[in-house]
Structure formats: structure tokens, C-alpha cells
């Protein structure tokens, strides 16, 4: 029996990009080994393909290289809210209420609103019990009393729920009412009875929403009894309110006999970008969120009239909590490296070895600010790395093999991520309750952002690199031709904008720069408008709009709204999702845009008549053949996986030259939804002339130029035949001319728009 591989060492860094003189810390989890070895290496190639460039790394002598004690560090996912304890929360009689939209009512005990000490087992908590019904639990420190409605809540229905306790008669009352009154099978239920405890014991626990607070031995905050679903308008009052009074308490200005009793009234429709939840009662018992639940979600009072939360925030006052949300793994640092001042800009990694296992934690050393060390910049698409971070499609969807056209093939990283769901998800995955994952953080091990890693469902036998490891094909090629270059990340571009790019004559993208923030797109647009030269060496770029969090480091948000390839679909609340739908299609930026995808084998490009235009002579210098890239380690060809097409109707410059187009894509290559306005029977590539990739070149008015290959697979052909091949030749020809300061000129009327 063959041993199934597993991982025993994984790590992450607190930064993805670091400049000389700055510090970067590494956090490591080791399971079952007393010690591990750490070394800093420069990454050049992660290609294990038998005909590929090989795995190439260079050991870098640093002060942190050495042996370290191994220790286990765990991840505690799940979002919830914490409101610090306050004397005004010490109540004998009380009311708890909220609007809730449970998504997994039968998953086990789930907290809605609590002031409960896990350590002392006392206080009060409004929960969903094991039977999926609303329940109130009161603990006096010795005994615990619980009252349940006994009626299972339905999934994805809004309920008004509340519970009160009147200490003098020891009477507990609770109700759950579906807001959709048209459902005759559930008219709502109210239960009341005298309980055996005299009231909640005083405790110093905070108020918590959507979970109870436990703590690790190291003092880390851990959510337990976590809730899945939306919560809106939670309230606590210091006396037993009636059901009518609780309804009044939802209002922003409750009547005079109710208002004084309200201890806290949290309004989730305020301060959306923050992780704070404001209490709008006079007490101002503000809280904070843990593990970034989804904010600005449709509330209980959503009318359907407004589809942008910014226009009607009060209707988007729900927070969707998930028991597997994760922002920051929060591990303790094992070692911290100060980047030596003379460190060349490149992609590096902390190589971690324990027993027979090895992990790489990649990071970029960028040049010092305003001090470029080359005229060529490799812009590493780290927003896209984060979008795909720890993607689970090969495990979680039965349709993946149908899509890709071959068996999925798991590697140790994939097996580990399946068993360790706490490591969190990609923007392609769904939470445990089936809702889409809209946040992705890099403050956790990202096991598919590793040199040597290939995707389990892309390419036969899970053979294709994706994102970082695919981009190493470009790094390897630049090294092989002796081209000096700087490296920065999307995060650098997002925070520094055009000023970062304009220091370079040539910018080279990664193979799949799919996710762009507004600031990133503005910077790239500005770079081209000012005469920059862009080599877009990938496919399906500049496609989805994402947002970096304005204050918290290392996390992005995506609303997977209309169109695009979507493994889940966002609820209303923000228009768009695709830059194309938002009126800034990639075709208008780089001449081509997403047109077709397939994941079995790749095709090649065939040169067009236009490729013989004198304007393109420098591109094809030394290339006599018409077939380009009918070789390569990614699917066997340079035209594949995801391909972009020239389309003047979407803004492709009319004077652009379509140099070559893809051929021989298989019947598993299909266009994305935004290319399918009406469903025709000839969707797949062999019958659909629009399902193709185009390679384009155009000059810009400011003397710059753009060269777009429009194919993710392109870079996988660069190293073929020891880098002597027409893909390498064309890419090198373009790079050489793009580095030449002579301006590009759009010459004559024939080539004008």
C-alpha cells in the first residue's frame, strides 16, 4: 500500500512585499516534529514537469537561516462580535432580541446574543438549540434553566426573535415569528413559563453576538457555538419587555416608556467599512467584529427598491456570520528577518523543512521606494493569488471533472486543506452554510501559493501551475535571458498607484492578473496614458473588481455580482463585479478581454496577415513560421486555459494589430456568461468563432505600446527547447523594443481609428 502524503509543516508571513531595511515575520506550525529547519531562498522556477525548466532556487545566507523548535499553532475560524463588559449589563431582569436569518438551523447549538461566561457557565444567552429552535438559557452559577420554542426555524427565512426574563416571578418568555406572514404552516410561536433559577449570575464576560467567547491558553479569542446566517438589529434591555415593546425597540427612537430600558441597540448599517458595531443607544456600548463576517448584507427590512447598499444603508443592516470565516490566523512569530539593504528585488521564500516535509512561504523583496534598480518591472498579481487562496473546487464540487475533462489529482497541499477547513477559503469557495466566500486574507498559510505546486483540477493529472507557480515561468525566462528586473506586488500598486509604475519603461504582468482594485486599474490606465509599455503575458486579466480593506492589512473583498465565471453568486447590494459590466472592460485597456476557457489541453496560435504589417516587424524578427507555440508544459501549447479576444465593440483600439489567434481548442473550451447574451447551439470553441484568443499589439498616443498575448498558457512555452523557440523569441523581441526609449508612433491614416 502506498503511503498517502501529508503535510506536517506550514507557515505564512505577515507581509507579502517588503523593501530593503524593512522587517518580515514568519509564523510556522509544525505537527509532530520537535525541530525544523528554515532557510531563505530566492525562487526562480517551480516546474517539476518532465520536460520543464526544473525546480530552481538559490540559497540566500541570512541571519534567520537555522534550526528552530517546532510547535503546533492552530487556527480558530468563525466570525462573531464582542462587546466589552459594562456595569450597565449587570441585569436581573432582561430582554434579548434580534432579527435573524439562519442558514443552518440544524447544525447544532448556535449563539444569537449572549452575556455568558463559558468558564463559569453562567449568564444568559439567546440561542438556536440542537433542534433548530429558539431557546433562552439562564445560568445562576449553580443551575441552568432553558426554555425552547420547540419549533425548528426554517433556513434562509427572516424571523423576529426575542426572549425576556422577569426576575420577580422568574418568568421566561420567548417568541419566534417569521416575517413572511404568508407562510401559513408557521404562524410563529410564543412560549412562557416560570423557571427554576432566580436569575443570571453576575459575570465579567462580554456580550457576544453570533458566538460565545472562549480563550486559548495563550489568550487568543476563540468563538464557540457559532451562528451561521444573518443577524440584524440586536437589542438588550434591562427589563422584561413585551413583544410589542420589543417591536418598538427596533425603531431608532423608541417610545418614552421603552427607551430608558434599552441597554444596547446595535445598528449594523453604520460604519460598514470598519470592524466596529456601533451601539446607537445612549450607553454607546460599541462592539467589534472578529474574523470579518460579511457586512452590508440585505437586512430584514430590505424593500427590493435599492440594489446598492450605499444608497440605502438602513436596508443593508444585516451581518452574515459564518462559522468558518477567517481573517488573521494570529499565530506567534517564529522568526523575523530584516531585509539587508543590498538585497536585490526578486521573489524569495522561507523554505521550511520538518521530517520529510517541506513548505515555502513566498514573499517579494521590492526595490526601495523611488529607487528602481531596473527599467523592467514584474508586477506580481498578488490580488489574484489571494482570490484563489486555498481554493477547494477539486474537493467541493462534483462538476469539476466535467468542467476540466479529466480526473482531479490531489497533492499533499490539497489533502491538507480538505482536512483543515479552518485554514479558510478562496473567493471561489462556499462557506459551510453554502453562501459565497467574499473575503480572502493572506494572514494565513496559502498552500496553493507555493513554488512547484500545480492545480489539482487544471491540466491532465493536475499538471498545470496556476498563479504564483505559473508566474515563475516568466521569472525563470527573465533569468534565463539575463534580463534584470524589479518585482512589486498588487498591494504595492494599490497603495502607491501610478507613481510606482511610471518609474519603469516596461511593466510585465503575471499569467492571470484577474482581480483589480479601482486604484490598481486607475494606475495601469494612467501608466499607458503617460507612455508606458505594458507586456500583458497572461489571460483573463483586469476582469473582476475587488477592494482592499481600507485599514486592515492583507484582505480583499469581492462581490461576485452579475456575469463572469462564478462558483457562487452575490446577493444584491452592489452592482457590477466585472470591470466589463462597470464600463471599463479589459479590451479598452489592453486590447483584449476574456473570451473562452477550458482546462484539458491547450492549442497554439496562428499568425494573421496583420502580423506582417511593418509595425509588427520587430515582434516577428527571426520568426518565419505561422504556427506559434505548439509546444509547452502547460497543456502542450501556448494558447490555452483562459484566453482573451480582440473586440472593438468593447473598446479594443481600432488601430491595434491582431497578430495571431488561437487554434485547436477542444470542445471543452466555452465562453463565459458575459459573452453569451443569447444561448446558441455553437457555444464551444470548435464551432464558435468568438471562442478564441487573440494576440494583439498597439501603440499609444503618448509613445508607449501594449503587447497582449491573451493566454494564461503562454508562459508555459517559454522554456521549451532551452528557451530557443518562437514564444520565447517573440516575447524577447517585444521586451527588447519596449525597453528602447524611442517613442512608438501611430503613423498613418490607415492605422488610425
Amino acid at each position: 500500500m502506498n503511503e498517502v502524503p501529508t503535510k506536517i509543516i506550514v507557515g505564512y508571513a505577515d507581509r507579502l512585499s517588503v523593501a530593503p531595511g524593512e522587517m518580515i515575520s514568519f509564523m510556522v506550525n509544525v505537527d509532530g516534529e520537535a525541530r525544523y529547519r528554515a532557510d531563505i531562498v530566492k525562487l526562480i522556477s517551480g516546474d517539476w514537469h518532465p520536460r520543464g525548466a526544473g525546480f530552481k532556487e538559490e540559497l540566500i545566507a541570512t541571519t534567520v537561516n537555522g534550526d528552530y523548535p517546532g510547535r503546533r499553532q492552530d487556527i480558530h475560524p468563525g466570525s462573531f462580535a464582542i462587546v466589552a463588559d459594562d456595569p450597565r449589563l449587570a441585569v436581573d431582569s432582561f430582554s434579548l432580541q434580534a432579527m435573524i436569518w439562519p442558514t443552518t438551523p440544524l447544525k447544532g447549538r448556535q449563539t444569537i446574543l449572549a452575556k455568558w461566561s463559558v468558564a463559569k457557565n453562567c449568564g444568559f444567552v439567546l440561542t438556536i438549540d440542537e433542534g433548530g429552535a429558539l431557546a433562552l438559557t439562564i445560568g445562576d452559577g449553580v443551575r441552568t434553566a432553558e426554555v425552547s420554542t420547540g419549533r425548528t426555524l426554517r433556513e434562509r427565512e427572516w424571523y423576529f426573535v426575542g426572549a425576556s426574563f422577569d426576575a420577580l416571578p422568574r418568568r421566561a418568555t420567548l417568541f419566534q415569528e417569521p416575517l413572511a406572514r404568508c407562510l401559513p404552516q408557521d404562524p410563529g410561536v410564543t412560549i412562557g413559563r416560570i423557571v427554576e433559577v432566580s436569575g443570571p449570575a453576575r459575570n465579567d464576560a462580554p456580550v457576544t453576538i453570533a458566538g460565545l467567547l472562549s480563550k486559548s491558553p495563550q489568550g487568543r479569542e476563540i468563538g464557540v457555538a457559532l451562528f451561521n446566517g444573518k443577524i440584524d438589529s440586536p437589542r438588550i434591555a434591562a427589563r422584561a419587555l413585551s413583544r410589542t415593546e420589543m417591536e418598538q425597540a427596533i425603531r431608532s427612537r423608541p417610545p418614552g416608556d421603552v427607551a430608558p430600558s434599552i441597554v444596547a441597540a446595535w445598528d449594523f448599517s453604520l460604519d460598514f467599512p470598519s470592524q466596529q458595531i456601533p451601539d446607537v443607544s445612549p450607553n454607546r456600548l460599541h462592539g467589534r467584529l472578529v474574523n470579518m463576517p460579511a457586512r452590508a448584507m440585505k437586512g430584514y427590512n430590505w424593500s427590493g427598491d435599492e440594489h446598492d447598499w450605499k444608497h440605502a444603508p438602513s436596508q443593508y443592516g444585516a451581518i452574515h456570520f459564518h462559522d468558518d470565516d477567517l481573517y488573521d490566523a494570529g499565530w506567534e512569530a517564529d522568526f523575523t528577518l530584516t531585509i539587508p539593504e543590498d538585497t536585490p528585488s526578486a521573489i524569495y521564500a522561507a523554505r521550511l523543512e520538518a521530517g520529510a516535509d517541506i513548505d515555502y512561504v513566498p514573499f517579494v523583496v521590492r526595490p526601495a521606494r523611488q529607487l528602481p534598480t531596473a527599467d523592467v518591472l514584474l508586477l506580481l498579481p498578488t490580488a489574484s493569488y489571494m482570490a484563489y487562496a486555498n481554493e477547494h473546487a477539486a474537493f467541493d464540487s462534483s462538476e469539476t471533472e466535467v468542467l476540466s475533462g479529466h480526473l482531479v489529482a490531489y497533492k499533499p497541499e490539497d489533502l491538507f486543506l480538505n482536512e483543515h477547513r479552518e485554514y479558510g477559503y478562496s473567493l471561489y469557495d462556499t462557506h459551510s452554510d453554502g453562501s459565497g466566500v467574499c473575503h480572502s486574507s493572506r494572514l494565513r498559510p496559502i498552500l496553493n501559493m507555493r513554488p512547484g505546486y500545480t492545480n489539482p483540477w487544471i491540466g491532465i493529472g493536475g499538471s498545470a501551475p496556476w498563479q504564483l507557480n505559473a508566474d515563475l515561468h516568466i521569472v525563470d525566462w527573465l533569468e534565463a535571458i539575463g534580463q534584470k528586473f524589479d518585482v512589486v506586488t498588487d498591494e504595492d500598486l494599490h497603495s502607491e498607484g501610478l507613481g510606482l509604475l511610471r518609474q519603469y519603461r516596461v511593466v510585465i504582468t503575471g499569467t492571470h492578473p484577474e482581480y483589480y482594485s479601482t486604484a490598481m486599474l486607475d494606475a495601469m490606465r494612467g501608466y499607458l496614458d503617460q507612455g508606458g509599455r505594458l507586456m500583458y503575458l497572461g489571460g483573463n486579466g483586469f476582469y473582476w473588481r475587488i477592494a482592499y480593506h481600507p485599514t486592515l492589512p492583507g484582505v480583499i473583498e469581492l462581490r461576485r455580482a452579475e456575469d463572469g465565471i462564478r462558483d457562487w453568486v452575490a446577493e444584491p447590494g452592489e452592482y457590477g463585479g466585472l470591470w466589463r459590466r462597470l464600463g471599463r472592460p479589459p479590451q479598452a485597456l489592453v486590447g483584449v478581454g476574456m473570451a473562452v476557457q477550458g482546462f484539458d489541453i491547450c492549442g497554439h496560435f496562428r499568425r494573421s496577415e496583420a502580423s506582417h504589417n511593418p509595425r509588427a516587424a520587430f515582434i516577428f524578427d527571426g520568426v518565419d513560421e505561422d504556427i506559434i507555440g505548439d509546444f509547452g508544459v502547460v497543456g502542450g501549447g501556448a494558447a490555452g486555459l483562459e484566453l482573451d479576444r480582440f473586440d472593438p465593440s468593447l473598446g479594443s483600439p481600432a488601430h491595434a494589430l491582431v497578430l495571431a489567434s488561437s487554434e485547436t481548442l477542444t470542445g471543452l473550451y466555452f465562453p463565459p456568461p458575459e459573452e453569451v447574451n443569447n444561448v446558441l447551439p455553437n457555444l464551444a470553441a470548435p464551432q464558435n468563432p468568438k471562442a478564441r484568443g487573440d494576440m494583439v499589439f498597439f501603440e499609444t498616443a503618448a509613445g508607449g505600446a501594449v503587447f497582449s498575448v491573451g493566454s494564461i498558457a503562454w508562459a508555459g512555452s517559454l522554456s521549451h527547447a532551452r528557451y530557443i523557440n518562437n514564444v520565447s523569441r517573440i516575447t524577447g523581441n517585444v521586451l527588447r523594443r519596449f525597453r528602447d526609449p524611442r517613442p512608438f508612433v501611430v503613423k498613418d491614416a490607415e492605422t488610425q481609428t
Partner: protein
Amino acid sequence: MIDPELVAEFLRCPVGHHSPNLQALLNVLRNEPLAGKYVLICLKPHREWILARHSGVRGRPPVPVPGYVFTDIEEAERTVFRLRWKRLTGEELD
């Protein structure tokens, strides 16, 4: 009735350009539910795989099927095709 030529076509070329009829057959064969679905576990990148079946449950590992080790990825595809064919038709393929 399934045209035996489709079987021959697949065995000649398990992944790549397929006739529409073979593609339709593969769409059925590959669309198994997750629980028990055939998957591979890669032991050596690009070189060695074993056969396993999906657990069907998030977080639970796939279960290896003893006796299947592949050093040729196309042979892995052919083997799974034969296994699925037998389940679909009750017949063994040569």
C-alpha cells in the same frame, strides 16, 4: 446502445479532442455525485498517482482504492473509464 467506436476513441485519446458523441458520453460518466467519485492522489508530481474515491463529506479524506498505481496519467483515465463503464452497463471492457 452506445457505439463501440466511442470506447475505442476514448481509449486512443482519453484527454483532448473528442467527437461530440464521445463528449456526451463522458459528460454522463464524469458527472458522478461526490460521494464515491473516482479521484487521484498524486504521489510524485507528473509521475505517479493512486486511485481513490471521494468521501463525499467536506473535511473527510478520500479513500484509496487498493491495487491501483499509475505511472501513466492516460492509463489512469482509461482505468476509471473502464470502472465507470462497468457500473453503467454491467459489462467489462477489454
